[in-house]
């Protein structure tokens, strides 16, 4: 359906110049150029989840780049002009993005808006390039092969077909990138940045990459846009343009890439319609912007998923393509896990000492339980171990190397994976895609997308993880459709697939029924074959059965550490902790 619509659109675009006059050709050229801007914005908004309200700044940057490199009275070669607009916009995007990407959510929206306005004022208030009046590019780019004028942007048809080709190329490039391993990480960031970071991805770099790619294509659009009329104006940077571009993205359907192209076309038609007195009457045509405003408001209230939402169901803008050659994995060989030791580890929150001088060692290939009453500092402790929080004092050694105070994604790369108290997976991804993203985290070169050996390893890691976690049969099910217990298993599967050798699990049994509990306890025992496992758990029966050692935390202090038998016998523990249950039957014995 989608493919059919796109092929039909391309076919129409190919023959259109033969049926419409010069105005129609120019109009359609402009729509195609805006579509390049909009599809690149969708890559930012829909794929990466960065809502930029300043994307038109790249339209302006590309346009002014062309102005600056064009000599007064002769044409600049298109072979130089087009790459120049792309590179200049990419450089600016890198500089602006380096700051803007620090911001999240609301802040990102406002910061991109502010940067767009900053560039607008820069070109509007100063005398550069004619200031607020704008400036003319006297001769637009041409391309000569020998004496033959192969391409002339001043020729309406030349420019038309060049823009069509540029639009198709931009779309295919972004589609390819979205479906590549890099794109998988970007989509992961869009849905759950914390999880992706905890798997060991430096999300800042990925978001910046996305910003630069989108900016570069925006620059391309700007260069072409300036070629249509041979004119640049500061208004190109303006936030109205940015707002309209967002509108086209949403009108078409965010995250689909093709949807926003349809959105740009539809918007252009809508605009022509609303501005034409013959169609809607003079009153509306005079105030067409108000009509547009109401269309926008109606769109948000009635059809927030855009046109693409009508063309497809439950795809959520996610490519489903995934290789399906699942071969039987070899039996898992015992492998050494990582060992972890802390010394005098402390964390204060103002006056509260949540973790107080904890010195404990977790041997490799064992299951270690951490127990304690609510508020004992258990979750704070594992937040320190996994780098979510920096410790106030003390050291943490992973296989003898100091990791205290390092960022979470750096610790994750050293082979430490963690799960969260609340299930933390990528709900719109399938089970297999979740694991594939995790498997990718262990690979240092996400760019090498066509590396067959790498793909095979990745596939093996996914198959192995699914098998270990007992989810092989559920591979193609969307994570959102799993039961609660299965989602917790999936989170563990992701950690296995990521290649972590030390797993830290925060209440993996919470909310599970007896059958699921038994299954996960067996899984934990099995995991110790090639991992070290540390878990927090409130289900006493289960943890006494599953763990090789137990550490008891009370008010931030480690009051006991030993085998389950030793802990059971430890009277201090009974008094301080197990005693609180009052009912002796609940003490595992």
């Amino acid at each position, binding site marked *: 359906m989608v493919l059919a619509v796109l092929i039909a659109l391309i076919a129409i675009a190919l023959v259109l110049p033969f049926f419409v006059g010069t105005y129609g050709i120019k109009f359609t050229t402009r729509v195609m150029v805006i579509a390049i801007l909009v599809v690149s914005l969708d890559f930012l908004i829909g794929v990466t989840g960065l809502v930029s309200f300043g994307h038109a700044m790249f339209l302006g940057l590309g346009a002014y780049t062309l102005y600056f490199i064009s000599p007064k009275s002769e044409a600049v070669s298109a072979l130089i002009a087009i790459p120049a607009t792309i590179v200049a916009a990419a450089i600016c995007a890198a500089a602006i993005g380096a700051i803007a990407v620090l911001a999240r959510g609301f802040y990102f929206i406002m910061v991109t808006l502010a940067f767009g306005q900053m560039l607008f*004022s820069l070109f509007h208030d100063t005398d550069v390039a004619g200031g607020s009046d704008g400036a003319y590019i006297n001769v637009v780019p041409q391309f000569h092969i020998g004496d033959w004028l192969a391409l002339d942007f001043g020729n309406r048809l030349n420019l038309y077909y060049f823009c069509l080709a540029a639009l198709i190329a931009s779309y295919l490039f972004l589609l390819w990138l979205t479906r590549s391993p890099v794109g998988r990480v970007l989509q992961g960031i869009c849905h759950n940045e914390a999880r992706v970071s905890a798997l060991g991805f430096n999300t800042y770099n990925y978001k910046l990459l996305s910003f630069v790619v989108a900016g570069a294509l925006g620059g391309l659009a700007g260069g072409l846009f300036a070629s249509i009329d041979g004119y640049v104006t500061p208004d190109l940077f303006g936030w109205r343009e940015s707002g309209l571009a967002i509108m086209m993205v949403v009108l078409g359907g965010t995250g689909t890439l093709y949807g926003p192209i349809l959105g740009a076309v539809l918007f252009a038609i809508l605009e022509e319609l609303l501005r034409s007195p013959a169609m809607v009457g003079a009153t509306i045509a005079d105030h067409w912007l108000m009509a547009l405003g109401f269309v926008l*408001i109606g769109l948000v209230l009635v059809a927030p998923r855009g046109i693409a939402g009508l063309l497809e169901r439950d795809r959520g803008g996610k490519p489903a393509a995934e290789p399906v050659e699942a071969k039987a994995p070899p039996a898992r060989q015992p492998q050494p896990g990582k060992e972890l030791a802390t010394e005098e580890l402390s964390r204060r929150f103002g006056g509260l000492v949540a973790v107080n001088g904890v010195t404990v060692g977790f041997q490799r290939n064992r299951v270690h339980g951490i127990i304690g009453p609510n508020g004992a500092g258990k979750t704070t402790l594992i937040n320190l171990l996994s780098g979510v929080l920096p410790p106030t004092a003390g050291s943490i050694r992973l296989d003898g190397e100091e990791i205290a105070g390092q960022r979470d994604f750096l610790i994750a790369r050293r082979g430490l994976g963690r799960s969260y108290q609340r299930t933390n997976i990528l709900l719109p991804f399938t089970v297999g895609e979740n694991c594939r993203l995790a498997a990718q985290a262990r690979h240092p070169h996400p760019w090498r997308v066509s590396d067959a050996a790498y793909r095979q390893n990745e596939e093996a890691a996914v198959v192995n993880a699914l098998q270990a976690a007992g989810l092989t049969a559920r591979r193609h099910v969307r994570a959102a459709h799993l039961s609660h217990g299965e989602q917790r298993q999936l989170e563990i599967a992701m950690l296995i697939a990521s290649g972590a050798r030390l797993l830290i699990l925060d209440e993996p049994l919470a909310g599970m029924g007896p059958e699921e509990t038994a299954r996960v306890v067996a899984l934990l025992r099995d995991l110790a074959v090639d991992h070290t496992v540390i878990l927090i758990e409130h289900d006493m029966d289960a943890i006494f059965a599953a763990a090789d050692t137990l550490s008891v935390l009370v008010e931030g202090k480690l009051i006991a550490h030993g085998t389950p038998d030793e802990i059971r016998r430890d009277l201090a523990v009974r008094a301080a902790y197990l005693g609180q249950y009052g009912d002796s039957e609940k003490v595992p014995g």
Partner: protein
Amino acid sequence: MELVLIQILNGLQYGLLIFLAASGLTLVFGILGIINLSHGSFYMLGAYLSLTLTSWFGDIFLALAAGIPIAFAFGAAIEWLFIRHLYNRDHLQQVLLTFGLILVFNELQRILWGTQPHSVPIPAYLSASIQLSDTLSYPVYRLAVGAICILLALAMMLVIQKTRIGQMIRAGESNREMVEALGIDTRILFRFVFAAGVALAAAAGIVAAPIESVYPGIGERVLIISFVVVVIGGIGSIKGALVGALLIGLADAFGKVFLPQLASVVVYALMAAVLVTRPAGLFGRA
């Protein structure tokens, strides 16, 4: 030296005006969780109310007294018609709907008041200038604007500190989910906060109208500057909005003198610097 004094006064006065606009924006962010692009339109509403009401009543202060309740009612109506559908929707849809509102408001303005710039008279009893030194004088009306802004800001603080609804606002400022969990009727709270934000922005527009002329795009500059203030101060923080607005006011005033063409760039550079050092703003929660 005298130039510096003048610019400090100008900067503080401009900063206080922006604070009125930005405080509404930051409260609406912090408590309703709404990113409201149409906030600048309410400043524009104030400026045009100032134009019309001053010509009816003949005095800017009567216009202010009448304009604030009108703007408050207008804000409540907008919340009821549009904004309440946006709670718990994602940022993108909030951006889009409020962008649509801007287009609608701009055209409404064109229909009602036309595209010509207008000026609003300064009341005769405030049209003098104060002699600050032998060679230096400063318009009384500008000082009066600063005083009005301070009074309105104090009134806002009083409402927030002393009333029941203010208590809810403070609770919402520190933890929005908690307020909902406490069973407070958030519909009333949200409508009040939104309407109050509109009234504050409009008040700023009303008193500023005699200083700058009244023209169609007047709200948009204020919107962008208010965003910058909120980014600097930290979302949801009134104190941050005050500090941010004064910083921006001073940066703008001195920028205009020392880097005339780059004054607006100075303001954005300030924002970038804050963002790099404190990504959640000066007083924001990380």
